[in-house]
């Protein structure tokens, strides 16, 4: 959206009415029925839907009889034609409608043979077209007509793989899949003209692959091997291993296994995939089945996750996740055995959300290990894990986790809707996904919580939140979130409530101090010195007497130095890590004061501010606090308390109208929702009866009203008596002690 459009929108459109915001109450704005608006009205920057090119739709029926019914092969051969955009594009530029017609819907140039077979109209059109280049094209098309057809018919009749193997060999020699495709094309059309070679390599690899790989797996082992090599760019790609072997059955069968080095566990492959097939396949099978694939799946391969696929896309996807795919001669399916076993860090301790009391384990760089950590805690059959993938170039697995029967279904749908809309080449971390799905995208405070703690995710899920695990990211997203939750820690709940409340209050004060303390110091010292007790004011004045800078510059210098230390502390190699502490202490503490660059009181102010910022339990909110601090310093320098107040009010208004997945960030305080005492202070655990009401969970109550029914203070309470009287209206209520 251009700047002018934005300004126009600012003046003319009420975004609160027209945006696609959604509400957990089920009322969705900007959507009609169950169909999301985004699905109906693709955005301008969305990629166009992939439709089969016109060329294919036209060419396929013509080729079928020529190729003996091998549809896959036809597609494979035909579509690997590189797009001709060199001279053909020039021709098109000349204004020839005829040549433009000869190109497919996707802009891909048709093979000459196909063009020739299209019939007289097109030939005539090409012949009519003026210009040398076009005439040559037409000539080439005519010539290629007969030869190309003969070749293809020959290839189809022979049905052996000699030609293809040669082509594959040539491709391997050529050293790249691009060249391989070219060679394949040459086999297909021996009389291919120069123009196609001129225009090669203009298409992106993704486009080519999607078009080149047939949908179904073939029965020919050689052909399948050839396609595997093509798909995985072999031999350039050294990570892929193809292991040829014989299945020693009653009638030996040729086979090969494909897996990715480093991603699969070779021990599992050796012992539980290859060994049974190569050595034990011949053993009596108790009257087993004749079908080798079925026998292998049911009796020979003892893997715990074995599946049969007949599509290349699925097989490729499985290989890329570390599974081993087995292809057998004469079988048009593949047996995929889960052999995933890449190296990853084990479950370690929390790095950024440490607690004293409570679990210390943290998520790691393994999706399934992470989901397992949560499931190990929240052991209910209602815990649902839905798997998705994001990434056009390299798909990344995503797991959406929620508790069925508690979570609001509208929330799950909204999370999935937003994730499904993300079309990106490669998505590596939950931090990237967060930026794609948060709304509004601008703003400093995080709209969802990223945590490395499995216990926090488990607790959130039990309260009706949704969590999203992204690939190998050790941070899991919990959504939606409220501002207050970002300042909570799991430890608040593990401690007894007075202490939980106490540390939480400290954190809330720290939240304000981290944002405002330097600004307040500037405001008081510069604009409102009357507030300071006289003795203290004299002390401050004496300390600042030798400092040559204005106060705001002094504060900015110190804050900048602190940010430098913080950033350096993260980036510095561990070996020299302690140095940063010494440098920081020297620079900030002693040297700067002795050099009269800063006043001693400012050191205290900055140190307290830094400590306050470190208490923020959420990494993202601490960034927001750090950034806002500089804004408030500026406001205080200009307007004193007046500026700080305007800034606070401005920020509060922004927060008040910010929503996270339809939930206002300041709820349950503004707007007010009746909730358990767990917002600013942490109430007793036996009073935490309700799940967060702003989420509109399916089940609001999470514990019975009387969890301590054995305690005299509970069963003699007025509330208990009323409840009992309500449950047993005939019984006379017991007199109060």
């Amino acid at each position, binding site marked *: 959206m251009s700047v002018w459009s934005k300004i126009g929108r600012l003046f003319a459109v009420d975004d609160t009415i027209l945006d696609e915001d959604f509400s957990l109450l089920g009322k969705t704005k900007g959507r009609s029925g169950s169909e999301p608006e985004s699905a109906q009205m693709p955005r301008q920057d969305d990629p166009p839907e992939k439709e089969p090119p016109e060329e294919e739709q036209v060419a396929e029926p013509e080729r079928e009889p020529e190729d003996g019914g091998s549809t896959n092969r036809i597609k494979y051969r035909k579509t690997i034609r590189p797009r001709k955009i060199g001279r053909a594009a020039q021709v098109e530029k000349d204004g020839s409608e005829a040549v433009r017609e000869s190109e497919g819907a996707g802009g891909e140039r048709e093979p000459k043979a196909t063009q020739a077979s299209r019939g007289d109209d097109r030939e005539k059109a090409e012949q009519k077209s003026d210009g040398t280049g076009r005439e040559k094209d037409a000539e080439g098309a005519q010539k290629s007509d007969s030869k190309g057809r003969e070749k293809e018919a020959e290839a189809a009749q022979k049905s052996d793989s000699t030609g293809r193997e040669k082509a594959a060999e040539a491709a391997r020699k050529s050293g790249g899949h691009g060249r391989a495709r070219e060679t394949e094309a040459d086999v297909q059309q021996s009389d291919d003209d120069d123009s196609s070679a001129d225009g090669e390599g203009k298409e992106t690899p993704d486009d080519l692959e999607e078009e080149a790989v047939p949908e179904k797996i073939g029965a020919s082992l050689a052909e399948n091997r050839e396609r595997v090599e093509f798909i995985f760019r072999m031999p350039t790609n050294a990570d892929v291993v193809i292991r040829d072997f014989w299945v020693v059955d009653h009638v030996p069968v040729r086979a090969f296994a494909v897996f990715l080095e480093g991603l699969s566990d070779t021990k599992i492959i050796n012992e539980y995939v290859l060994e049974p097939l190569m050595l034990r396949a011949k053993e009596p099978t108790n009257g087993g089945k004749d079908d080798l694939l079925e026998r292998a799946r049911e009796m020979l391969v003892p893997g715990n996750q074995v599946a049969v696929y007949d599509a290349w896309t699925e097989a490729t996807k499985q290989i890329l996740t570390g599974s081993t795919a087995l292809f057998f001669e004469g079988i048009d399916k593949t047996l995929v055995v889960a052999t995933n076993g890449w190296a990853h860090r084990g479950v370690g301790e929390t790095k950024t959300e440490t607690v004293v009391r409570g679990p210390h384990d943290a998520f790691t760089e393994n999706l399934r290990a992470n989901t397992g950590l949560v499931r190990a805690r929240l052991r209910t059959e209602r815990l649902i894990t839905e798997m998705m993938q994001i990434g056009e170039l390299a798909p990344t697995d995503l797991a959406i986790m929620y508790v069925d029967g508690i979570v609001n279904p509208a929330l799950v749908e909204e999370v999935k809707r937003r994730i499904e809309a993300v079309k990106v080449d490669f998505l590596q971390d939950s931090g990237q996904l967060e930026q794609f799905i948060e709304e509004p995208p601008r703003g400093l405070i995080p709209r969802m919580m990223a945590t490395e703690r499995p216990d926090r995710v488990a607790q959130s899920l039990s309260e009706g939140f949704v969590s999203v695990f992204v690939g190998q990211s050790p941070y899991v997203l919990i959504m939606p979130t409220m501002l207050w939750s970002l300042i909570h820690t799991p430890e608040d709940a593990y401690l007894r409530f007075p202490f939980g409340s106490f540390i939480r209050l400290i954190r809330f004060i720290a939240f304000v101090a981290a944002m405002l303390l330097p600004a307040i110091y500037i405001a008081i010292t510069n604009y409102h010195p009357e507030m300071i007790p006289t003795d203290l004011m004299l002390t401050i004045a004496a300390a600042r007497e030798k400092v040559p800078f204005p106060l705001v510059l002094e504060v900015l210098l110190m804050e900048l130095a602190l940010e430098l230390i913080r950033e350096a502390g993260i980036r510095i190699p561990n070996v020299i890590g302690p140095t940063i502490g010494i440098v920081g202490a020297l620079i900030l503490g002693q040297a700067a004061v002795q050099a009269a660059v800063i006043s001693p009181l400012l050191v205290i102010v900055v140190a307290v501010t830094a400590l306050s910022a470190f208490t923020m339990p959420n990494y993202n909110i601490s960034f927001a606090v750090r950034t806002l601090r500089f804004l408030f310093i500026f406001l205080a320098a200009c307007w004193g308390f007046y500026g700080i107040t305007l800034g606070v009010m401005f920020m*509060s208004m922004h927060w008040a*109208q910010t929503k996270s997945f339809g939930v206002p960030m300041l709820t349950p305080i503004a707007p007010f929702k009746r909730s358990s005492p767990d917002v600013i202070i942490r109430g007793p655990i036996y009073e935490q009866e309700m799940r967060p009401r702003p989420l509109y969970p399916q089940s609001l109550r999470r514990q019975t009203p009387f969890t301590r029914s054995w305690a005299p203070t509970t069963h003699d309470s007025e509330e208990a008596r009323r409840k009992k009287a309500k449950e047993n209206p005939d019984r006379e209520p017991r007199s109060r002690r």
Partner: protein
Amino acid sequence: MLKTGYLGRRELFALVFAVLLANVFLTLPQQMVMHGGAAAWMIPFVSAMICMIVWAVCAPALVMHPGENMLSLAERCLGRIGAGIAVLMICLFLMAEAASTFRLFTEMVITTVLPRSPISFIAIPFLLSVLYYAYTGIEGLTRVSSLFLLLFLFGLVSLLALNSNWMNVEYLFPFWGTGPLRVISGGWQFSGAFLNVLLLAVFGSLLRNPADAVRIGYWSTGATAVVYAVMVLSFTLIFPPEASMRAPFPLYQLGRLIYIGQFIQRLEAAFVFIWVALALIKVGTLVFVISYLIAWFCRMPVYRPVVFSVGTILYALAFVPESWPEVNMWNTNILMKVGWTVAWFIPMAILWMARWKDGKGEDRDAHRNAS
């Protein structure tokens, strides 16, 4: 006008209460003391009584017509032209009130907090904040009000408590101040400060349950009367009436007086937060209401295009008076004297007319036939 959703009753109460509360930080206590002398603290109760009676008369109309507000009822009762005239009158008054508050506030900031600052240096940031508040609309305004309401009340209570060492009961005499009649007439006059009737008549329909609007009306009127009375009472307990009449910013004066021990002194700057926040909420709400009414009058589906125009007019209008005394005079002699006509008389007239027509059955039949 498009309806975007429902408001929470607590949030709407907080907004209405905060808008009324803002007056005590401006010149209202001084004006009351000037009118009622030592008995000025009684004036808010008289005003509240008038407003409650008014509300009792007109509020049932909102319950009888759920989902409808004063504007739609005015259109039905007075016709398009009559309703338009009523709305324009309200807009003019609110614009004058907003401009007056805006100027008073900026002048007050210059006088007390940031002396020697150019007025535009103070006014422009305030105007930008006001525009942002008005732009975000009723939802944001209500939420911010409810977020800070307790803080505002805590600030007021602590301001009074920290000044308790200066209070002198003798200043309350003579008990009837300038006389009972002056107190009653003052009550009538200062009832114009109770804008809650107007606000609820316009926005009460945004509540899920229209009956909540009635309750909010009573509660906000009562609570405001108590706060006004307590503030004016404390003010007169600390400053004798003669001195009070010469103190244009009473609460600022109270803040300056704080001196407890060696470490709690001169806390007026600490109350700047409450003071600025309340002024911002009040002016932001007024600008929003003006924009909303103009958009309704022009049959616009959304009000936001009007906000910036209203802000520009507000800024220009605020600088029409040459000086702060002139603004104060306009405020005391004109706005405060005629304010009641817009604050409750026009809403009452419209809503009562709606009730009357409904009682006659004409409207109900027309509705039934239409449906």
